[in-house]
């Protein structure tokens, strides 16, 4: 498989603060690769180093198998969709999209053809003469994407482009982006703090924290088998329990024993984390047939239509989150009610 982007031990320091700390990854041709993490984790800086707006303090950046470190942005085979879109306000849709092509001095007819194709791709045919101000948020979004894509970059970089949109539009754009990626087949590197977006669209995700990549893997790997407590918590808001492992059992202070699947690589008495996803936990007045059952008290109840979310206080004073599908539920527990929560050992993931 051809590698389109590769970072080798890239570090970026701004003064004394380390924004990106020894990051390495490879992105294959045609892949949808996401950098996921909370704000300030270095994901945008990483993207800007690929685009050429920041120079790595250490390490190497390759695009299309060529070393990029000393190549200025205007010579790189990358194009970026900015967080604030950065559409040119003094130009209309056509002139925005054709900006890069005109600089490359392509023949007029060819430019026209390419812009038309691109507008078709994002279903904005006939918008050529519109001013940027006259477009809705979603339309501006799509113009920004094709303004970059029309240059046929080796890799398209997207810096949280869906951030300013409202929830419904964002969901539509996620579908749209995935479709565009499928149709053009270009390599995408997508920066986001929204785990939902990353899980839906990506072929692979790199979860970042404090400038480091914690885990790189497919959405299922990241979601089902998180290697760090942070990853488990950030993706899917897992409930985490700390304890010491011995023979398929984790002893948690003040709570008791959590039965997990046997893990032969873990030595006895080692301190570990157990992550349980909110949707894998059952809640009820009585529970049966589950490996792990604990007493708890409902502290808060959020009825959200499709699901109901509970915050339940356990005996070790930890609050856990439980999400229950609303369909088929007989009753909703109110704050202060004594309940039992439980989960099977398959759903208690050991994070080492």
């Amino acid at each position, binding site marked *: 498989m051809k590698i389109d982007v590769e970072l080798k031990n890239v570090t970026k320091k701004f003064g004394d603060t380390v924004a990106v700390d020894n990051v390495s990854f490879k992105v294959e041709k045609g892949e949808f690769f996401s950098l996921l993490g909370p704000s300030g984790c270095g994901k945008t800086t990483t993207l800007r180093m690929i685009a050429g707006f920041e120079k790595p303090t250490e390490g190497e950046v390759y695009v299309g198998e060529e070393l990029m470190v000393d190549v200025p942005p205007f010579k790189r085979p990358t194009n970026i969709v900015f967080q*604030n879109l*950065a559409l040119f306000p*003094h130009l209309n849709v056509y002139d925005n999209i054709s900006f*890069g092509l005109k*600089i490359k001095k392509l023949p007029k007819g060819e430019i026209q053809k390419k812009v038309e194709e691109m507008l078709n791709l994002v279903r904005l045919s006939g918008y050529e003469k519109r001013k940027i101000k006259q477009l809705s948020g979603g339309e501006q979004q799509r113009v920004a994407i094709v303004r*970059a894509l029309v*240059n046929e970059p080796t890799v398209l970089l997207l810096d949280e482009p869906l951030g300013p949109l409202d929830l419904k539009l964002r969901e539509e754009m996620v579908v749209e982006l995935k479709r565009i990626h499928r149709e053009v087949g270009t390599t995408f590197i997508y920066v986001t703090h929204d785990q939902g977006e990353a899980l839906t669209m990506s072929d692979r995700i790199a979860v970042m924290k404090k400038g480091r990549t914690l885990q790189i893997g497919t959405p299922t790997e990241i979601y089902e088998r998180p290697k760090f407590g942070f990853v488990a918590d950030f993706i899917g808001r897992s409930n985490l329990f700390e304890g010491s492992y011995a023979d398929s059992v984790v002893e948690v202070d003040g709570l008791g024993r959590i039965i997990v699947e046997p893990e032969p690589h873990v030595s006895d008495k080692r301190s570990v984390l157990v992550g349980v996803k909110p949707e894998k936990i059952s809640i009820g007045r009585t529970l049966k047939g589950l490996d792990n059952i604990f007493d708890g008290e409902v502290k808060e109840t959020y009825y959200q239509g499709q699901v109901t979310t509970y915050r339940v206080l356990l005996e070790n004073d930890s609050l856990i989150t439980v999400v229950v599908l609303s369909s088929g539920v007989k009753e909703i527990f109110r704050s202060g009610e004594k309940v039992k929560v439980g989960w099977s050992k398959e759903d208690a993931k050991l994070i080492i």
Partner: protein
Amino acid sequence: MKDDTTIRERVLSIFRKMKKLGYYWRLFPAVFWLGFFLVLPLSVMFIYSFWTMFRFELFPTWTLQNYLDIFVRAEGLYLRLLSKSIGMSIAVTLGAIALAYPAAYYISTRGGKYKYVLLALIMTPYMVSWVILIFGWRMVIGYTGLLNAVLMEAGLISEPMRLWGNWMAVIFVLIVSWAPWLVLPIFVSLEKIDRTLLEAGADLGARPSENFRKITLPLSMPGLLVATFFVLIPTFGEFVAPVLAGGASGAMIGTAIEAAFKRMHNWPFGSALSFLLLTIALITSFVLIRKTGLRTLMESL
């Protein structure tokens, strides 16, 4: 029934009109201010421009002769002066912008934390009187000035150059005195440009020079138009610089207006000249305002 409603509607409409009048009433202070200090003297002048003056006395003759005189008097001298003034104003505007733009650009892009200190420094010439500034320049580029002395000493010229006392000297002093003023509006329009637009330009393949031509320059256009407005209009009627630095070839229409009032004692002719100048200034302002938008203009002031 029907009459009732029509009456009610009429009363309501009168009431609405009165309310509207109330709103207009609030404009009174501004209207009074303008009326008393601007419209009143101008009206007197406007009336005079149709009168005749003979032996220091004004006669209300109601004639258009003063306006016709502008075109025919002294073999078209006044028309030539007028077009020369317009030409010189345009030259001053272009020259001042050419000086101010790089300064504003530098302060905006490289100023860093010293941005506002640099801006303040740019404005320091205003602590010195305009007349002193002109004489200062005279000491530099005048016949016996510094420049000539240095060049003579160096043996580059054998006799002093006549740089002072002509139309070029007028344009020069006007350019150097206007340029600092123009840094402000240009700076404001440059500051308003979102820096990521330039990153976007670079990302799409534009070199810094192309970025400037395709993004920075068009987006700083409002500032340039405001700058034009600042310089062009007042320079039309400029009167101090031609007198102090201009000599015979540096005369402008403002000089002629002064002469008409003071030396020729022909107030009506001076008034007619003034009104022609005012009309040109008004039309130019109107065009500039239409192009820039009143809001941009006022925000940059």
